[in-house]
């Protein structure tokens, strides 16, 4: 078995708000094998982006451990962290606000190279930028353009080139395609996949789009209100979802196929507030199968089948 490049143990991030403690990420543990993709799905506010950002320490976690290549990233001091960031990069959701409007494509892509002092010679650096642009499918002539001159797909390619500039091993992709049109979305997904094979990258792929995550990931983790509720290999999760939330989520995907009109499970109510949550299953208020035991305590993630984890007292079909 391949080794785990990233290991997250009991990661927590609480935000102190005026209304009380907001449990954005509440005890999340998972590992990502080298060269593989972990897809993290969930609805807005479930803590998936916060998880991605705390792993890179863009947000400081409240507690927990994050191992990268066997070393705890959370113990790093500032200069160690800066070095570590060379190996861990992020691609953001919005290709419009994640690029500095006053910098040219050249400046944006070469910035991380300069920060990490990888290529001191200016001419060589520009060649490296051109090489990166070719890798992500940007025409050479765009090197001196500004982000506002380019469309969303091209901008997202700049974001990818910037992340690749320092030869990272691990990239957190935070909804990299959700701001893009379908035909462009497919281009970017294919590009990310090709890059993974070519550069043996490890991805954490954060998204709310289940058909995308299924296509893209080796393993999938489903989050609900700061907790992992289910974790399994992608095929297994889609074929045998065990958590009632996962089942509802899967049934809610609109499928562009007329022969597949299925009965949808319509969840009642909406995601409850992550502030001052009671000690009960966080999904209990919307679950179709809630019983007294669910209101008693928060269920922990447990392995029901090999490699298939679920946090539910009564997983479906078990």
């Amino acid at each position: 078995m391949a080794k785990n490049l990233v290991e997250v143990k009991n990661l927590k991030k609480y935000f102190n708000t005026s209304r009380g403690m907001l449990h954005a990420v509440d005890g999340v543990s998972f590992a990502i094998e080298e060269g593989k993709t972990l897809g993290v799905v969930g609805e807005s506010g479930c803590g998936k982006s916060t998880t991605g950002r705390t792993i890179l320490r863009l947000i400081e976690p409240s507690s927990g451990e994050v191992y990268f290549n066997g070393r705890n990233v959370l113990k790093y001091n500032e200069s160690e962290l800066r070095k570590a960031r060379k190996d861990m990069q992020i691609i953001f959701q919005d290709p419009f606000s994640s690029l500095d409007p006053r910098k040219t494509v050249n400046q944006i892509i070469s910035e991380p190279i300069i920060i990490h002092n990888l290529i001191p010679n200016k001419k060589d650096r520009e060649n490296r930028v051109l090489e990166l642009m070719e890798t992500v499918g940007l025409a050479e002539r765009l090197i001196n353009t500004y982000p506002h001159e380019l469309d969303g797909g091209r901008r997202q390619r700049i974001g990818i080139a910037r992340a690749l500039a320092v030869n990272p091993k691990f990239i957190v992709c935070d909804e990299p395609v959700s701001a893009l049109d379908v035909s462009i979305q497919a281009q970017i997904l294919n590009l990310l996949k090709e890059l993974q094979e070519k550069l043996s990258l490890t991805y954490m792929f954060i998204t709310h789009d289940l058909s995308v995550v299924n296509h893209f990931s080796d393993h999938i983790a489903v989050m609900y209100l700061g907790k992992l509720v289910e974790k399994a290999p992608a095929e297994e999760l889609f074929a045998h979802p065990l958590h009632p939330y996962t089942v509802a989520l899967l049934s809610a995907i609109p499928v562009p196929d007329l022969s597949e009109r299925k009965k949808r499970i319509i969840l009642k109510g909406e995601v409850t507030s992550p502030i001052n949550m009671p000690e009960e299953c966080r999904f209990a208020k919307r679950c179709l199968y809630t019983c007294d035991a669910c209101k008693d305590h928060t269920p922990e993630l447990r392995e029901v089948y090999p490699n298939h984890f679920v946090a539910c007292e009564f997983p479906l079909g078990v």
Partner: protein
Amino acid sequence: MKDKNLILNIENLVVHYETENGTVKAVNGIDLKLEKKRAIGLVGETGAGKTTSALAILRLVPDPPGVIKSGIIELDGENILEKNIKELEKIRGKDISMIFQDPMTALNPVFTVGEQIAESIILHENVSSSEANESAKEMLEMVGIPGHRANDYPHQFSGGMKQRVVIAIALACHTKLLIADEPTSALDVTIQAQVLELMNNLKEKYQTSLIMITHDLGIVAEVCDEVAVMYAGRIVEKGTLKDVFNMTKHPYTEGLFNSLPNVNDRKAKLLPIPGSMPDPTNLSIGCSFSPRCPYVTDKCHEQKPDPIWISDTHMVECSAYDDPAFHIVRRER
């Protein structure tokens, strides 16, 4: 000729935005017919002209810079383009309503949701304000929100509930034609499922005709009877769901389907459409899709394709079909 069964008839609609940097050719001659109680999906990517077409139906295209250059838009037999402002105000909200994409900005933050629903009723129906408030509460209940919440302000509701309020406003006067512009793209999947189910139910109940603007072919399959696929301001293919989904004709429609990840086969490679949308200020003289089309011939660059009717319901605009042997092979899903 007037067809009594038609709620909407659009012929050769052309809408341009005349800006300092050139003319944006947003809608370039579309024809669309919608029968009563039917739902049509208007599909296409950003900049295809979907929203501009919808705004033209309500005569809400921002002017300047927007200009409706030519065309006919008949609602229930009456030409909208010939109406004056007073007449339009009677039609908007009463005969045609629109649900906008972003429920967070569609509501006025300083009025209660009840007041906002009642406003439309008071404007269009001869009722007292207390009667209107009662109807507003009923509408709220109809979209699944307790009536007593009529006195709450928009910020007290979540995204999904705000969109329900917007739907309640749109349907408050039992409108004949409802235009929904990406009504669920700002919502989470499980909430989207709730809102789509609600829209399906209300459509039945009020016998409303529906234009659903979306980029999601899955939503079209859930809600609509017919589909029109737009590209660079033209309808390039239209037909019943079966026509377009099962007997896809236009290379662009094919590209859209092939770009979607397949839920049932995760190994299937995505086949994206190469390139990106053409610049609407500078459209080619030929077929606008020709630079991205895998079946392109010299003819496509030179000449706009004519509509070809494959059957009574199924239309495609593609010169390739001049050759009777031409067919596209859509990948099995």
